[in-house]
């Protein structure tokens, strides 16, 4: 049997893991569109991400146990079918509540497929070590590519297409696995059930949860800043955040250069904290300034996720259960990160909104334009703000159409630039405390990474 890259079963399993773990982050760039289409709040739309990650966190270990009980082939095939069916339901949802329910069911199917894949991979690729590498790489690739793919689909087609396109992909991945399901022998399953399950690697999983919280914050907040704060299109934002997966490729090369997983984990957490610190201290609202922090975050996440996953799985048996613990820890981290930071930045957006509006009004009042025009602009700003409750304001167009007179036009253009500058400052600064907290969480992950060195290994 071909146990290399030519084996369609390896590709099918990698695809299954990639597509499920991409789903954790694929909707990030679609959130602003979902937010508008379903007429919900920032907190409500956060649950489109939270629901999936929460169910994954809760279901991963039980799903791994179920996979071992019914047979990993059958579990993976059933999991992918559930994932595809729920994806279809997500794609046709017209209300936030149905979307959240479908996302939760999707996560159940996903948890079953991902943990079963880890159980199937050693027999398919020939060794547990190789299986871990394929599994972790597929998951990291999916998670890193997710936002960019989701952004492109959102702008070119619609946010619903993100879910609808998963249906044929998940079913295609299930086809080669069906043969395994048919071949499974009940005796082998029973034999696996009888093997004892060792305790999970506590500190590696705690560290995984903490860095996942920081990574989720980095992706979620950066996308919101780009789309809602700086008014980029989803494709524009997708291109910008592609810097992270590109940098992650560099990080994966570094992983091969340094063997010690604890050093890689520590370096990854430090880079993650540095990148998030950079985003917290952006000196201007310019896309180019987000690139250096993204490089550090991309390299950091690649180093720390692979190192901690390897540490959590090293020498532990059965792999599916321990893989389930890592999935659980990562997704729990995402949930904690989102739930902890959402109230912080929604509050900060509201505060900055008020401050930016006052600063914008001050710019208008102090400008050399006609006093009556000033008051008319103040009125337009007030009217515009009626529909902007809780959102980062965009007041640039209240000055349109521009006056015909050249002198007046240049005054109004200058006023518009100053007004835009105040709004950009407000939008950018609204995210700073949340990025700062995420950076602190990444730094604090060094504690369990250090403890893992002394106690668990």
């Amino acid at each position, binding site marked *: 049997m071909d146990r290399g890259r030519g084996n369609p079963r390896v590709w099918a399993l990698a695809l299954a893991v990639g597509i499920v773990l991409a789903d954790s982050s694929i909707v990030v760039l679609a959130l602003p569109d979902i937010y508008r289409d379903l007429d919900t709040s920032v907190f409500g739309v956060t649950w489109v991400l939270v629901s999936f990650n929460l169910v994954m966190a809760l279901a991963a270990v039980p799903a791994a146990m179920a996979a071992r009980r019914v047979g990993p082939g059958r579990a993976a095939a059933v999991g992918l079918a559930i994932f595809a069916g729920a994806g279809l339901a997500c794609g046709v949802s017209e209300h936030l509540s149905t979307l959240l329910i479908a996302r939760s069911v999707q996560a159940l199917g996903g948890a079953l497929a991902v943990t079963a894949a880890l159980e199937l991979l050693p027999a398919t690729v020939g060794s547990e070590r190789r299986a871990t590498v394929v599994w972790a790489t597929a998951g990291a690739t999916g998670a890193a590519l997710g936002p960019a793919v989701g952004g492109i689909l959102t702008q070119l087609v619609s946010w619903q297409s993100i879910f609808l396109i998963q249906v044929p992909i998940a079913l295609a991945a299930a086809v080669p696995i069906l043969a395994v399901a048919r071949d499974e022998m009940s005796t082998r399953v029973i034999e696996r059930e009888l093997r004892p399950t060792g305790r999970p690697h506590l500190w590696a999983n705690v560290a995984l949860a903490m860095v996942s919280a920081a990574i989720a914050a980095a992706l979620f907040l950066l996308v919101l800043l780009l789309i809602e704060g700086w008014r980029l299109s989803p494709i524009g934002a997708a291109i910008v955040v592609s810097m992270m997966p590109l940098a992650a490729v560099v990080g994966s090369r*570094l992983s091969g*250069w*340094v*063997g*010690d997983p*604890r*050093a*890689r984990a*520590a*370096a*990854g957490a*430090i*880079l993650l*904290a*540095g*990148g998030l*610190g*950079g985003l*917290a*201290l*952006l*000196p*201007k*609202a310019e896309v180019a*300034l987000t690139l*250096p*922090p993204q490089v*550090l975050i991309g390299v*950091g996440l690649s*180093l720390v996720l692979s190192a901690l996953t390897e540490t959590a799985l090293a020498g532990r048996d059965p792999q599916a259960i321990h893989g389930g613990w890592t999935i659980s820890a990562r997704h729990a981290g995402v949930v904690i990160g989102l739930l902890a930071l959402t109230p912080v930045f929604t509050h900060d957006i509201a505060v*900055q909104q008020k*401050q*930016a*509006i*006052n*600063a914008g*009004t*001050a*710019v208008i*009042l*102090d400008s050399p334009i006609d*006093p*009556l025009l000033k*008051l*008319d602009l*103040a*009125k337009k*700003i*007030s*009217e515009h703000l009626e529909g902007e409750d809780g959102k980062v304001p965009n007041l640039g167009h209240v000055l349109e159409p521009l006056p015909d007179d050249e002198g007046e036009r240049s005054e109004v253009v200058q006023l518009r630039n100053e007004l835009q500058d*105040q*709004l950009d*400052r*407000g939008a*950018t*600064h609204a995210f700073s405390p949340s990025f700062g907290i995420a950076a602190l969480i990444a730094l604090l992950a060094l504690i369990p990474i250090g403890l893992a060195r002394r106690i668990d290994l």
Partner: protein
Amino acid sequence: MTRARALVVGALVFSLALVGVYLAAGGASYTPEKSRNPCEPRPWHETSGGLEGLAEEFTLSALDGAACRLGVTREQLARALATKENRERFSTRFHIDDEKLAKAIRAGLLRAIDDAEEHGRLNGIVAAPLRAVAEHVPLEEGIELVQDAKKFLNGESFLSGIGDALEELLP
């Protein structure tokens, strides 16, 4: 140095360098301008002069004076006075009734007259009758005068005939 140590040290150096460069470039102070305290004296800008320039500075001064009396910012008050609906929302939010607002508007107009006089932009002969008007102006008219100080300063509605004289007396 081992590769493992080099990796950790490299991560530290890159992270600190990024944070340091962004801090040095003003990352910690990239925030919207804070609203000025309206109770503090307001510098009068050099304007093109004449009634137009005086009216512009007068309006800002009057807004400052009224906002100071109400304990709100000048910007909040300017938006509140833009429409009737805004004013109602403003009154509910800050618990300010019409009487309180009228007193504040009068205080604002008086401060603007004082400021204009102090900055040599208004002659004492003109300031006295303007003060008399400002002290008793009803709310709606007071708001109109703050918004369009030219009317007040040339006496269109209250001091008919004084407008031309004022143009003459302006420094």
